[in-house]
């Protein structure tokens, strides 16, 4: 299914925002690399604007058909607000305890901790570049062993358009992979783009 293309700012502001997401992803990747004590392969960030009805096909297109997935959700608020969704393959989650070298912690606790580290670093780095203070809610496991279509119910999403910033973290030669999606609703997109424009004006 194709998603309608909704324009995100100017090409220059889109480029700047992608680069700032890239920096946030790098800081999150560094946190994960230190936690796992291994090298983390990072993707090239992708920005997509979608309507609620397009969300499930957009997520499916991003994560592919990787089998059952586990999703962790964490909200953030401040002058910008939104939600982050860390999506893992169920098979990759099984190797978590082995990756971090913990044997006495449940895989749910590990997932929540890893998601907290990734989301905090990625979204926090982006916000700090605009001097925007954010509060994070505690992360929670949204669904376990779901498909992308089952993750979110479009009619319950309180926005008309959302900017999805997608970054992926992959451990080389291990099944672990995390797709980190951040959703920015309408008003936050406007705040974010104003901040990007102010950033560009300083160049």
């Amino acid at each position: 299914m194709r998603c309608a293309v909704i324009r995100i700012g100017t090409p220059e502001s889109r480029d700047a925002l992608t680069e700032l997401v890239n920096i946030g992803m790098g800081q999150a990747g560094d946190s994960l690399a230190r936690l796992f004590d291994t090298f983390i392969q990072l993707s090239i960030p992708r920005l997509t604007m979608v309507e609620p009805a397009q969300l499930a096909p957009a997520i499916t297109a991003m994560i592919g058909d990787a089998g059952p997935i586990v999703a962790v959700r964490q909200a953030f608020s401040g002058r910008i607000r939104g939600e982050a969704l860390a999506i893992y393959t169920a098979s990759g989650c099984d190797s978590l305890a082995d990756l971090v070298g913990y044997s006495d912690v449940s895989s749910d606790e590990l997932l929540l901790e890893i998601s907290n580290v990734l989301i905090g670093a990625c979204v926090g780095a982006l916000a700090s570049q605009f001097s925007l203070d954010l509060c994070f809610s505690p992360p929670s496991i949204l669904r376990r062993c779901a498909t992308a279509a089952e993750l979110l119910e479009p009619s319950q999403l309180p926005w008309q358009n959302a900017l999805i910033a997608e970054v992926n973290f992959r451990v080389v030669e291990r099944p672990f992979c995390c797709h980190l999606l951040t959703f920015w609703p309408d008003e936050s997109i406007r705040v974010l783009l104003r901040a990007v424009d102010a950033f560009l004006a300083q160049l």
Partner: protein
Amino acid sequence: MTTSILVVDDSAVSRSIVIRSLPAGWDIAITQASNGREALAALEQKPHAVVLLDLNMPVMDGYEFLEAIRQSALPRPVVIVLSGDIQPGAQARVRQLGANAFVKKPVRAESVLGALRECGVL
């Protein structure tokens, strides 16, 4: 003498930030490339003294570019990696592949200046 500098980054905004971070009054000629393959083509056309290289790029990333110039007969430029991928493994890997210095993004003028001095370019 004019110093030829090749700035490689898929983000035009990022290239602009990097160029603006270079010391004012320095006699330089700048070429821009948006991925490793374009950068290789630029080096094949004419030698550059310094390459300021991003890592995470489409088509050919910074690692592949470093590997390619290591295996080529091209004159070896000073390569300073500027990347948001700041994990220790990334920094070690680019050093192994022949990069001379590593600067963390977001790029700050003083960090670029320090790297240029570290490499003996300034």
